[in-house]
């Protein structure tokens, strides 16, 4: 392949597809390379699609995108060993079109998105792994090396949308190896159930969906969360914890998931389902402080490869699509202006991101990872105390309520000093403000 492209996009996940689509639509000569047999075959997500980020790229995506259910109810459960205390928010306002978020199955969704990229005019080549970046004498990125014969391909700019592991960025020394404290490992299963059973079990209609976020004992003291999402005729159930925590204990990820699935509050929701796939994936959760350099001479980084995940709000694919779109718009503007893809010119990408919700949100929660890393009580002591307090108050046994209140207060005091309790409240406030 001796042809030179305007741009090469490495990877066909949400960020790569957003970038490739936006540039192809604007008439650029785009090559997109994907190592899977098709777009999506290497990709894993919960998965929730936030409509807004995709609307800005493909406004009428609802016409033909493979969407599972729109979410009408969000449950948040804090679990002890055999109980949970939870909040549910359900609103018919979520039943009004256009819907705000959907569950999706990534293998299908990414394939659909990739179809749109091809319709827009990009050349998409699958089953091709990019092994290296090509540089000129001035160290400028000028193309990529692939694992096929005669595999040097050239372009004015290369967009790395190669996901959380981003071996390319590491080999090129754009950023160092990921640290265990900045990534979570999530494992997930998909369980199939008849549609009617699923709808009855979750009290939902034909197209409606529920998400459950799980927090507490299920992560066995590790910093992490679990989730359960309803698809059309399947349930995605998974759990993720920081690698730095996984490293310090002896429970395997699959045993952790199995134990969570067997929790008495979760087991009935999955009963009778048929498990059809088991997946694992890393989530870059280091936040704002862990974002590497995301542009340079002839290159840009988008999506998971750039740590663009808001762990607090479980948002990632929308940040991926937004960074992909903004990187693409930066390239389009430079090409129109006849300017080179130098680091100085590509700096616009970073400043546009700084002005967007992507960096604003990540910056807002920048202290969060550290606070949770250093304060395990949020994952262990408090879920236990909250559940046991609920039990004490709701268990009718002839003891008066005033005495029960005293009992609850003293159980908090035993586990945590008054100073500790106040300190924790302050830390939470500082993390979320």
């Amino acid at each position, binding site marked *: 392949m001796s042809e030179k492209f305007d741009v090469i996009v490495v990877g066909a996940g949400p960020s790569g597809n957003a970038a490739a689509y936006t540039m192809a639509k604007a008439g650029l000569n785009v090559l997109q390379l994907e190592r899977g047999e098709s777009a999506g075959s290497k990709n894993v997500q919960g998965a929730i699609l936030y409509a807004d980020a995709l609307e800005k790229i493909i406004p009428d995506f609802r016409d033909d995108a493979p969407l599972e259910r729109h979410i009408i109810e969000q449950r948040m459960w804090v679990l002890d060993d055999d109980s949970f205390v939870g909040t549910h928010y359900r609103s018919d306002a979520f039943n009004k079109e256009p819907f705000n978020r959907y569950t999706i199955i990534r293998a299908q969704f990414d394939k659909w998105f990739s179809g749109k990229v091809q319709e827009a005019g990009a050349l998409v080549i699958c089953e091709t792994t990019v092994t290296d970046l090509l540089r000129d004498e001035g160290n400028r990125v000028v193309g990529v090396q692939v694992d096929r014969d005669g595999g040097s391909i050239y372009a004015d700019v290369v967009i790395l949308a190669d996901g959380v592991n981003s*071996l390319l960025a590491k080999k090129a020394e754009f950023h160092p190896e990921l640290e265990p404290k900045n990534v979570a490992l999530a494992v997930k299963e998909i369980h199939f159930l008849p549609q009617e059973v699923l709808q009855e079990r979750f009290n939902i209609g034909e197209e409606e969906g529920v998400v459950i976020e799980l927090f507490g004992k299920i992560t066995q003291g590790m910093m992490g969360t679990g989730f359960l999402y309803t698809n059309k005729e399947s349930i995605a159930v998974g759990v993720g914890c920081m690698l730095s925590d996984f490293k310090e204990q002896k429970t395997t990820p699959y045993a952790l998931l199995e134990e969570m699935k067997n929790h008495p509050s979760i087991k009935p929701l999955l009963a009778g389902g048929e498990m059809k796939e088991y*997946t694992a994936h890393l989530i870059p959760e280091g936040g704002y402080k862990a974002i590497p350099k995301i542009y340079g001479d002839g290159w840009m980084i988008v999506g998971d490869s750039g740590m663009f995940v808001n762990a607090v709000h479980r948002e990632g694919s929308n940040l991926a699509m937004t960074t992909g779109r903004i990187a693409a718009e930066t390239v389009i503007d430079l090409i129109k202006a006849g300017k080179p893809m130098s680091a100085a010119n590509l700096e616009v990408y970073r400043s546009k991101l700084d002005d967007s919700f992507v960096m604003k949100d990540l910056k807002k929660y920048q202290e969060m990872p550290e606070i949770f890393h250093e304060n395990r009580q949020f994952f262990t002591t408090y879920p236990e105390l909250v559940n046991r307090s609920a039990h004490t108050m709701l268990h009718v046994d002839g003891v008066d309520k005033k005495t029960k209140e005293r009992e609850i207060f003293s159980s908090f005091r035993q586990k945590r000093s008054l100073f500790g309790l106040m300190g924790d409240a302050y830390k939470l406030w500082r993390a979320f403000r």
Partner: protein
Amino acid sequence: MIVKVEEKLFQNRYRVDSDRPHVKIVKPDVCEYECQTRQCTVCCPAGCYTLEGNGKVVLIADGCLECGTCRIICDDYRNVDWEYPRGGYGILFKFG
């Protein structure tokens, strides 16, 4: 709780690149004699790493889910050589 990961992996679709594993242990001696924790045998979500009775760590990457965990947690020794499989090979997610 004893959980057999093989039963989970059995549901997955793979195209294994025979005789070309994309993950390798760089120096087996480091796992055997230097590493005290051998957390790869705990943390790999596909159970690709097993600790043998003689103290050796054996890696069979056929069931690899390509997550990258083993490479990142081996931060004391950097003893895992981790590349992506050749294009089209490895795990092929049906749902993802």
